[in-house]
């Protein structure tokens, strides 16, 4: 068992990171949870629904984040980057860098006084790309473009969480073990999972996560049809391109594992909302091996989503006599065909976050998408696995064993 006096570092607070932290803390170990963003939840916060249940993603993620925040054995540092691990004289040291954020999320109680007093209205309840205000933990979001650094918010804060002159703070903490749960990134900056897919140069060519935000329930007005981002005309047809940038030696050789089901989820839920929408999913191999996933695919097919086994080789916006929209060139039997769609969703180019340097030197585990592409269920399993491997690192006389014996004696 690891030394319980030293914390175990968990980097990343997506589903995997939060689950790993909770699993370890529930076994009586101290956990230091580090998140570079201002809030817990990771990419799952950007999901409107989860497959295969079609339930909203908010509740489970919120409950996990809440449990992490309230757990007596979990310490959370938001706005903090993990810079690496090194071997100190008395064990491993983790180098952390707390960003120079004007509002310290760990002190803020979200009373809202700063938001009221700001003459520029630069402090908002939440980041504009998140649907709900009590982000986790709730901290006002500062719009850097609007803020003119008048400094009025500083004295208004009752907890001293605001400091305009705050510098980046680098510090080290002693850790016994480390779990890295960095998750995935969509290809950024904008250009291209692959150049033939038109990059992200046209507003009607979207990535799957951006499309999720566009069609999310909190963005959709009942009865209003899906519209093109370029000129606001109603979209009549939609094409998903699977494995865009993935299973591709030039970019990501892996299969991102979540995208077939993700496309089926988005397609079926749009089809239910707007049955006249023509939806085609261009795929290479349709992969739905998980629990309940085959039935989910079948359901999408029955709703009228067309699954086409072709990989488009060229995607380009067109505006001419043959129509307006995004043209897709793909094989059709022995020939080449062109399909016109109003919106194209590029699906699959999810890159695993690289593990930072130094993690290999001390005992470290990785879980979640960064170790092996995984959806929510598999991330949770991987997190439990990583926690178990850390707990079982040394057998015998560890502190947890002692704790169990004590329990045994008492009851």
């Amino acid at each position, binding site marked *: 068992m690891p030394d319980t006096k030293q914390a175990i570092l968990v980097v990343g607070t997506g589903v995997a990171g939060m689950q790993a932290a909770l699993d370890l803390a*529930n076994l009586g170990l101290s956990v230091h949870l580090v998140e570079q963003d201002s809030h817990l939840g990771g990419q799952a916060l950007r999901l409107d629904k989860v497959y295969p249940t079609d339930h909203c993603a908010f509740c489970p993620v919120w409950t996990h984040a809440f449990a992490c925040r*309230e757990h007596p054995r979990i310490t959370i540092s938001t706005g903090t980057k993990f810079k690496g691990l090194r071997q100190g004289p008395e064990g491993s040291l983790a180098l952390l860098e707390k960003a120079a954020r004007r509002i310290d999320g760990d002190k803020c109680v979200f009373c809202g006084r700063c938001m009221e007093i700001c003459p520029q209205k630069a402090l908002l309840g939440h980041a504009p790309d998140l649907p709900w205000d009590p982000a986790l933990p709730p901290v006002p979001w500062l719009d850097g473009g609007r803020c003119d650094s008048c400094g009025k918010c500083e004295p208004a804060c009752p907890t001293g969480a605001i400091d305009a002159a705050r510098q980046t703070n680098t510090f080290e903490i002693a850790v016994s073990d480390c779990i890295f749960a960095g998750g995935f990134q969509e290809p950024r900056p904008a250009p291209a999972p692959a150049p033939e897919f038109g990059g992200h140069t046209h507003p009607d060519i979207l990535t799957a996560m951006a499309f999720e935000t566009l069609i999310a329930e909190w963005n959709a007005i009942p009865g209003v049809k899906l519209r093109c981002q370029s000129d606001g005309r109603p979209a009549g047809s939609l094409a998903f391109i699977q494995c865009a940038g993935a299973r591709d030696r030039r970019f990501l*050789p*892996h*299969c991102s594992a979540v995208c077939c089901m993700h496309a089926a989820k988005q397609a079926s839920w749009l089809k239910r909302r707007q049955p006249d929408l023509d939806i085609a999913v261009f795929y290479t191999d349709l*992969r739905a*091996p998980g629990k309940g996933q085959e039935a989910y695919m079948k359901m999408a097919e029955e709703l009228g989503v067309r699954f086409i086994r072709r990989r488009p080789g060229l995607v380009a916006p067109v505006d001419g006599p043959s129509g307006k929209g995004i043209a897709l060139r793909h094989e059709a039997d022995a020939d080449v065909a062109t399909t016109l769609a109003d919106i194209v969703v590029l699906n699959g180019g999810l890159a695993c976050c690289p593990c930072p340097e130094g993690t290999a030197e001390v005992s470290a585990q990785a879980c979640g998408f960064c170790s092996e592409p995984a959806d929510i269920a598999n991330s949770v399993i991987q997190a439990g696995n990583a926690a178990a491997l850390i707990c079982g690192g040394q*057998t015998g006389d560890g502190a947890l064993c002692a704790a169990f014996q004590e329990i045994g004696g008492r009851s």
Partner: protein
Amino acid sequence: MLAAGCSLSARGFETVKFLSGRTFVEWADIRESCAWIHEDDPDGALRKALDILCMGLAALERRVLIAEQLPSGDFRAGEVLVIGGGPAGLACAGALGKMGVRVVLAERRAALGGMLTQLGLVFPHFVPGPELAGELIRDVEHNGVLVLPATTVSDVQPVPGGYSAALRGKNGEERRFFDAVVLAAGAVPVLPRGLYRYGELGGVLSQMELETSLGRVENGQKDALDLPRQAVFLQCVAARDEKNPYCSAVCCPTSLKNAIRLRSLRPEGSVTVVHRNIVTPGKHLEALYRRATAAGVLLRGHNPAAAPECLGTERVEGLRFRDALNGEDTVLPADAVVCSTPLKPLPDTLKLAEALGLRTDSMGFACAREPVQPVSPPLAGIFVCGAARWPAIVEHCLEQGRAAAVKAAAYVRGLGNCSGNSRCLPVAPHALWELMPDSAWRLPAAEVCGEKCSRCGRCAAACPYNACFLPEGTGMRIDARKCARCGSCAAVCPAGAVRLSGETVAVLRARIKEALSR
């Protein structure tokens, strides 16, 4: 004490914990359910806040002391039963043992290892199966796990405080008490009986038969020339159809692995995989796919609308299928057609699941709660992992086994900390309690008034958590460990003998009366 502020679930936690003990606490939420939702009407919000406060005061007057509940069962120190000694069960038992939890591992066969021992090589790292099994068994034996080989769990029942399992082994049947049960009973491959002329034509094989002969050749027990020269793997046999409407997840990787082995053992031959979709999600399995194509394994998609057909008179001579890409009927010459069949749960597993009150899906696999609690069903002290949950490759079985171990250890540990009474206040919603199974967060269970109880048994039938018991000679008893405070028992009790602690009818009535009188 009446406390007014935010909703309990947001910020009130620490305060309530601090106040708990001998004080009656009534909580009035005037933030989320009042101030925030009536942002545009401050005066109305103020009036509503006053109403909420008055309701709280009225409820507080009616509060009576909650009698301390005594532990309802024989609380023995945490012992966990792991059912199944395959990769998932071994990984689970080993991890639990390392964490200092006492474990009993029951395996129905005489030897541990399950299907792992039959696999010559395990992807994605191509480790010999028996070697991996040996490692896992060593782990289990070195960590004080009590292994019971050739033992079946003939019956398992929820009892107050835990589960009672009947273990039938060489020395007869023994009943034991366990705090938690991990179901890792695995699954078996379906045999392609009556399909593609299996059993009728020579050379039509099941995947397991090929696996065995490949293993023999690799061990030098058999000559490579006995292996097929023109092998065709047919995927999704008896899978993804009406009878078995699911993708079994393990068959594509298994076929690719065996195709690679066959290519290296008989490089002069040819290997084709006829598939509907090659399912190799992720990093490692996709690398296996690349390795297979690099080794010269041919992949052909077929259209399931036209069923493939094995050709030949005595021995198989070829496979006819419709190509998925050009739509043409194609005949592939073959001296062996390997049928890739899915995994199916054992009938015994279904029986166990039923006895535990565990839900199974239409295919018979045990259900947990997808996607956020994939190994924890909504039953206290029950966990599922491995192929009993859903077909999984060895690597995923190991991961699931260890994930279930962590949950079971935390559960047993939480029980150890809890003295069994329910002095702690009803602060946490059930979901949260499960995430933090610590004593301070426990809910008080429902309460029974023994005199009113007529032993009709409706509560026990209604309880979704196996928490209601009807012991001989007394009224109904509630197992405080398992009760999730859902209120089902109170709702169905015709005698009004059950109630949720604190929420008496008088309290509710006072609250409603106050609200309506204003």
